[in-house]
């Protein structure tokens, strides 16, 4: 059930476990697959070329370890290199010794600057305890100022707007004065979307930069951007010298190779990722997660490591054998559930399973919601746990009372176990499980 890239690599490399080094021929074959994967993820083709050359060298030098197949070995190296490349540079914002700290946001039309301004303001207010304000300097798009003002109200952050001028440089200058006078710590400057080849508008951005002397200039980049991301980044870099990136719309299923392209050509780090439509859905950037996302795989290796840490080996083997035989009692349910809990929050664990990341899109996995599952199982007798089919009406009522849940919930869980048994059989037979139906059960309760 490993994902396509690992599988493809496995296909071209075969099982060379324990044979020592990867041969030049093996590596060349593997690199072809890596190149394709990166191109499909929208990493710029020039960046791909350079990156593949680096990885190739490392692969030739690498010892093939016993524990991993050659395919996994290559994936591990690629993953490490990607993470290293994307993780360079600070992901933190810089704050000026003399407030207000100015943060200038710039980018193409539709990349998400206005929403990002509000999200960043909320983040600064809540997470950093700052008193931010926003300057509404997008005077191009109709009603952009109204949009920002409404968002400002929602997050209780003042928005400085002027309706008597069409000059964003003047608005920025004035807004900075306001921020200073009102003792705000941070001023976020939202600007109009512009094409990097539009000289007039790029000059205007340069003028805003000069006027406000920002401590941070952030490029707002749509994670769905394709090959053109390098041209955009290079132009913005040349003209306004941004020092960080906000990656938006990461809640979609774009692989986000543009992030790597931009990092590679400008050297500037991704600082934040926007992961949803709600205003609190802005997170500090995680280079490791992005690396596995670009490769189109769950974090296979981390999952393997965590699983190894969490479960005693023989216990795990026993469980695996039972699962493959299609037997799945409530004792197993409890055991695997506890094992998963030891590995971390459920959602992140499931996100690490290759192929499931996509299925989880739009599905909310709330750990608390699943606590009642545990309570129900603990209210069962040993016999009931081992032979769930005996749990009929009377027993269901008793279990519901004992666990403080309803009969309906007990029924849900009983159905859930049946489904899980089916799912485990699918995994055993190498098919991909349908997780959504399982998770949907957890959601029915809401």
């Amino acid at each position, binding site marked *: 059930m490993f994902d396509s890239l690992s599988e493809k690599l496995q296909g071209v490399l075969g099982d060379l476990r324990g044979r020592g080094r990867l041969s030049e021929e093996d590596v060349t074959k593997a690199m072809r697959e890596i190149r*394709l994967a990166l*191109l*499909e*993820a*929208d990493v*710029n*083709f020039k960046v791909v070329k350079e990156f593949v050359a680096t990885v190739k060298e490392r692969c030739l030098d690498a010892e093939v370890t016993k524990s991993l197949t050659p395919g996994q070995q290559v994936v591990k190296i690629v993953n490490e290199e990607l993470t290293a490349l994307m993780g360079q540079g600070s992901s933190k914002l810089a704050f000026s010794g003399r407030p207000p700290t100015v943060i200038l946001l710039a980018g*193409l*039309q*539709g*990349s*998400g600057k206005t929403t990002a301004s509000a999200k960043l303001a909320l983040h600064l207010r809540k997470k950093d305890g700052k008193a931010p304000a926003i300057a509404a300097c997008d005077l*191009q*798009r*109709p*009603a*952009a100022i*109204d*949009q*920002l*003002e*409404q*968002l400002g109200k*929602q997050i209780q952050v003042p928005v400085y707007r002027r309706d008597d001028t069409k000059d964003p440089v003047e608005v920025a200058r004035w807004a900075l004065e306001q921020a200073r006078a009102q003792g705000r710590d941070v001023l976020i400057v939202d600007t109009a979307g512009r*094409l*990097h*080849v539009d000289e007039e508008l790029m000059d205007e951005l340069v003028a805003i930069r000069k006027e406000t002397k920002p401590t941070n200039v952030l490029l707002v980049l*749509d994670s*769905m*951007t*394709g*090959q*053109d*991301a390098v*041209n*955009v980044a290079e132009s913005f870099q040349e003209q306004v010298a941004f020092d960080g990136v906000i990656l938006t*719309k990461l*809640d*979609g*299923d*774009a*692989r986000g*190779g*543009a992030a790597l392209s931009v990092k590679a050509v400008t050297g500037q780090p991704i600082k934040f990722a926007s992961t949803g*439509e709600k205003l609190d859905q802005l997170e500090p950037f995680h280079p490791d997660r992005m690396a596995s996302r670009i490769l189109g795989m769950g974090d296979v290796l981390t999952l393997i490591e965590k699983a190894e840490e969490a479960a005693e080996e023989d216990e795990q083997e026993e469980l695996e054998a039972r699962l493959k035989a299609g037997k799945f009692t409530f004792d197993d349910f409890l055991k695997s559930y506890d094992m998963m809990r030891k590995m971390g929050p459920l959602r992140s664990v499931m996100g690490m399973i290759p192929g499931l990341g996509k299925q989880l*899109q*739009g599905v909310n996995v709330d750990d608390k919601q699943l606590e009642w599952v545990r309570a129900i199982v603990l209210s069962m007798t040993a016999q009931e746990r081992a032979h769930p089919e005996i749990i009929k009406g009377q027993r269901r009522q008793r279990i519901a009372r004992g666990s403080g849940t309803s009969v309906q919930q007990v029924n849900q869980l009983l159905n859930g176990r049946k489904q899980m048994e089916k799912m485990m059989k699918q995994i055993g037979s190498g098919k991909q499980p349908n997780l959504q139906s399982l998770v949907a059960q957890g959601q029915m309760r809401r």
Partner: protein
Amino acid sequence: MTRTWAELLGDEEPEDTEPEKKRRFRRLRSGLTKSRQAFARGLTGWRYDPNDLETWERLEEVLISADIGVETTQEIVERLEKRRPKTDEEVMEGLQDVLGELAAPEEEPRLHLDGTPSVILVVGVNGAGKTTTIGKLASRLRESGRSVLVGAADTYRAAADEQLEIWAERAGADFVGSTRGGDPAAVAFDSIAAGEARGRDVVIVDTAGRLHTQSSLMEELAKIHRVIASKLEGAPHETLLVVDATTGQNGLRQAKLFDEAVDVTGVALTKLDGTAKGGIVVAIGHEFGLPVKLVGVGEGIDDLQPFDAAEFARALVSGGGPDEDEPEG
């Protein structure tokens, strides 16, 4: 042949077609100049040699850097190889033909406006340019002599209906507003009812941008589509997916999932005035048979054009169009 609005709308050609064609073409060309230069640069100094692997790799890179995608690029190269071109010129010609075939799965795509009123539903991901496209489209339809009403069924984004209202005013179209957080399907319904009552020719329904992966929002969109269909027989007459030209391979996922939810009838490709080449529409045409109908080449109200696949391909591939010596507008 460059396509005109009259051709796109299935209208009689006005007498002064030639000037309109020229004006339109100049705009498209000036919008595309940068894309074309970048594309041509990739091919400059490139001498075709059928036995040289590097030649084909170079070609692949040019196509991939236009966001055409690995798979569609391979398809293009295969089709091109079958034609056995012998000279550089034959390669270029072949490439134009093949790109045209793929991006125009439908011969001469039209905007189907045969209802009373005709309903156009506009969908797409956040920031693709839906509202701007609607503003420009409304203006063009007004110029063609049609009366237009636009409905603001984007009840999610702050100030979305203010933005649309400003565009409607510019275009001289009626406007049906909404309240934030309201039911978008109800707004769509009201818009059509108002369009019918006032005898408008076209009703354009704007929707909130949504990522195709948000299943609940996609269901909401499907509901809007259902409500429109039950309100007026044959509606929506067009369901346009708006795709940003800078979009990479994710555009394929967008096309697939939006098509599944609301049965897309055409694509509007926006922001083609930058350096992005918009090659993703070639992949979309190839994989899903969805024709591109409109292209946006600037922020002005006139910067929306009928899509012409052969022209698009030609402009992308060659260093100059048929009227290279014509001054840029």
